[in-house]
């Protein structure tokens, strides 16, 4: 292939060529820019909250403002950053390349997904600008339906619409993976990222509609003034929680499974080895997706659900830890007799494993009924899910972004700065969130804007950590932009990785491959290594 060949970026540079594109790669870029926008706003809300919590008194913002800040932070981060992060950005860009397809199965639907996402985001932003919402991202009834004086309906409408975007993305990925694989790419030759995205998509398609109907019921009840969650009529506010968590617990796996897929790609590439126990890693993804649907009640151990239901949900929640543990063990064993190098993606992947294991182990504590009774609704829970979502998913997203950045842009990011940012993020993250475990066990409730003075020291530590975290996020933003113009040309395969996405030029041509590739070997089939870790036939 000759050099200035038309790639997907140079195939048209009008605004229209972007806004009406059906190219999965361009749609991935559109998602990247839009989730970045939401991330910055949600991070700003977090920064204000951390500043407020420096002192025990509520002196920076009013309590009403604080409540709106954490609602906004939660809603934007969960639905407009984390859920679309790896699936919609990297998934869109990489899945067709990885399976040797020219595009996703339904490119127009793919564009529609993005528009639904943007329209939903518009409603949510509008609700925030005209005064915000103070229910928390969980919208618990009857507070949301009968007591809150904020723009609940508009916010719920935004999430409802964006939810359909998620569903269509999931549907598109399922069909693409089922029907569009290159010749020879059988199910058990698929890269693990594809398996994890397939499991994620199943959750997107089967759980998101339940969220949609739940929010719709909540909104109708708020408009109508009567409804089924209202205890005044004999309705049950706990039913809302069941329906909400039936979506929102599997949603946690939407936020972690893709991360696990990315880490599997990177661990193999930077240790130059086949993954240990491929089939077990595959089945653990599917097992997480299935068991993940059966554990929602662990959010409700103290909600007055029956103690026997609590026990069943507790046991299933312990079980869902097993497949995650299997993945961690397999990643560790993959390193054995590998040839390990420590470029930024690998540092992020290793930091993912560390933070995810801490998140998982504290998850076991939360699954333990008696301990949960104490720490439910405290900062312990806040710390736990940030370890999974930020320590896990955001770290994995950063890992994937660095790993595929050369493929996406054709340019290398500056390696030393990349490594520095990964280390800063790891320390900043732990300093921010580890003290919150201690706070939680001490009994500091979450969602409070002033607190008892004895909790102050940990809040100060946490805020200090958050400022380091902020630097850790600004740094990659800066050097990624820099690399677009001044980065070293990457070439098709800078990491010498296996996988079809590296077989085409960087950035890839509009139709991905000049010729449909044919697959003849398993995933991660790296050649044997010599004593000092070079491939023998290289």
């Amino acid at each position, binding site marked *: 292939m000759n050099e200035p060949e038309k790639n997907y970026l140079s195939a048209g540079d009008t605004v229209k060529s972007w806004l009406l594109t059906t190219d999965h790669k361009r749609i991935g870029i559109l998602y990247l820019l839009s989730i970045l926008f939401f991330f910055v706003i949600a991070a700003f809300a977090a920064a204000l909250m951390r500043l407020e919590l420096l002192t025990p008194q509520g002196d920076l913002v009013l309590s009403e403002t604080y409540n709106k800040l954490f609602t906004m932070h939660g809603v934007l981060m969960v639905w407009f950053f984390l859920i679309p992060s790896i699936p919609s950005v990297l998934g869109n860009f990489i899945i067709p390349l990885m399976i040797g397809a020219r595009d996703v199965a339904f490119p127009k639907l793919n564009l529609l997904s993005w528009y639904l996402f943007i329209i939903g985001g518009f409603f949510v932003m509008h609700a925030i600008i005209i005064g915000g919402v103070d229910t928390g991202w969980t919208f618990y009834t009857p507070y949301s339906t009968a007591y809150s004086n904020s723009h609940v309906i508009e916010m719920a409408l935004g999430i409802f619409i964006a939810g359909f975007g998620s569903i269509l993305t999931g549907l598109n990925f399922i069909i693409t993976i089922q029907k569009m694989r290159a010749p020879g790419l059988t199910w058990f030759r698929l890269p693990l990222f594809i398996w994890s995205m397939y499991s994620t998509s199943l959750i997107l398609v089967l759980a998101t509609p339940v969220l949609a109907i739940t929010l719709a019921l909540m909104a109708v009840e708020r408009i109508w003034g*009567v409804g089924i969650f209202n205890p005044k009529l004999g309705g049950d506010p706990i039913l809302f929680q069941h329906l909400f968590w039936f979506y929102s617990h599997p949603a946690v796996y939407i936020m972690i499974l893709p991360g696990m897929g990315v880490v599997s790609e990177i661990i193999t590439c930077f240790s130059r080895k086949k993954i240990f126990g491929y089939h077990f890693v595959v089945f653990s993804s599917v097992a997480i997706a299935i068991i993940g649907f059966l554990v929602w009640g662990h959010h409700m151990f103290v909600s007055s659900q029956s103690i026997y239901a609590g026990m069943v949900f507790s046991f299933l929640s312990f079980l869902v830890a097993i497949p995650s543990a299997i993945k961690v063990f397999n990643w560790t064993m993959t390193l054995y007799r590998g040839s390990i190098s420590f470029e930024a993606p690998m540092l992020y992947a290793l930091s993912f494993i560390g933070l995810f294991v801490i998140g998982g182990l504290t998850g076991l504590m939360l699954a333990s009924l008696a301990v949960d009774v104490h720490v439910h609704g405290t900062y312990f829970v806040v710390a736990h899910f940030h370890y999974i979502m930020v320590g896990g998913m955001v770290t994995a997203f950063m890992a994937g972004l660095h790993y595929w950045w050369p493929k996406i842009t054709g340019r290398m990011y500056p390696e030393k700065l990349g490594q520095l940012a990964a280390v800063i993020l790891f320390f900043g993250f732990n300093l921010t969130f580890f003290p919150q475990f201690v706070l939680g066990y001490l009994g500091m409730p979450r969602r409070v804007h002033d607190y008892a003075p004895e909790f102050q020291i940990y809040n100060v530590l946490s805020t200090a950590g958050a400022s380091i975290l902020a630097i850790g996020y600004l740094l990659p933003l800066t050097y990624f932009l820099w690399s677009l113009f001044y980065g070293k040309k990457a070439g098709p395969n800078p990491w010498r990785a296996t996988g079809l996405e590296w077989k085409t030029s960087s950035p890839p041509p509009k139709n991905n491959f000049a010729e449909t590739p044919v697959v003849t070997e398993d995933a991660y089939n790296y050649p044997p290594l010599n004593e000092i870790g070079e491939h023998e036939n290289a």
Partner: protein
Amino acid sequence: MKMPEKNSNVAEQFEDAQQQSEAAHLGMWTFIATEVLFFGGLFLAYFVYRHFYFHEFVIGSKRTDVLFGTINSIILLTSSLTMALAVHAAKENYRRQISRWLLLTLLLGFSFLVVKGFEYHKDIHDQLVPGANFNPALPAQSQIFFWLYWTMTGLHAIHVCIGLGVMSVMTFLARRGKFSAVYRTPLELAGLYWHFVDIVWLFLFPLLYLVQRHS
């Protein structure tokens, strides 16, 4: 079997018409799975409250109009038949019959909505809308029944409207001779969707109109 030039109906990303058709069908089934869970939340709520307030649900369901409900069930079932006949006509390449059956389906779907409209009118007149004006002769918790009645039938009616929109496009395309035994995927998918809407009604009808009969 090498095709020199791809059929104009095959989109760029697909290898051939068969792959496209399989992908489209799987897509529709996946979409229906989503829809099942969308209605699933409502059905769950229905069964929970029916268990709590069975007595009030019986009283409530006696106030819904079985006559309208039965007429509408017959109308929708018939429309499923005409839809199936439209797809069958395409399969057998009776191209002129396709749009005839589709028009009939459209007509039946529309009459469903008209009947539903009359029924809603009667319900409002009978003060069956939960809230301040709810019929004082009924126990308070039967409002939960009617809340579900309005939400479930309302959501179903929205789906019928979407179905009518899809069907109008299909009729338009059929009249322009777009469908044949070779290319009929959109028609089959519209049919799948329409049967799904029909089946949802077949669950709603006994749950909302006939509760007292199996107590």
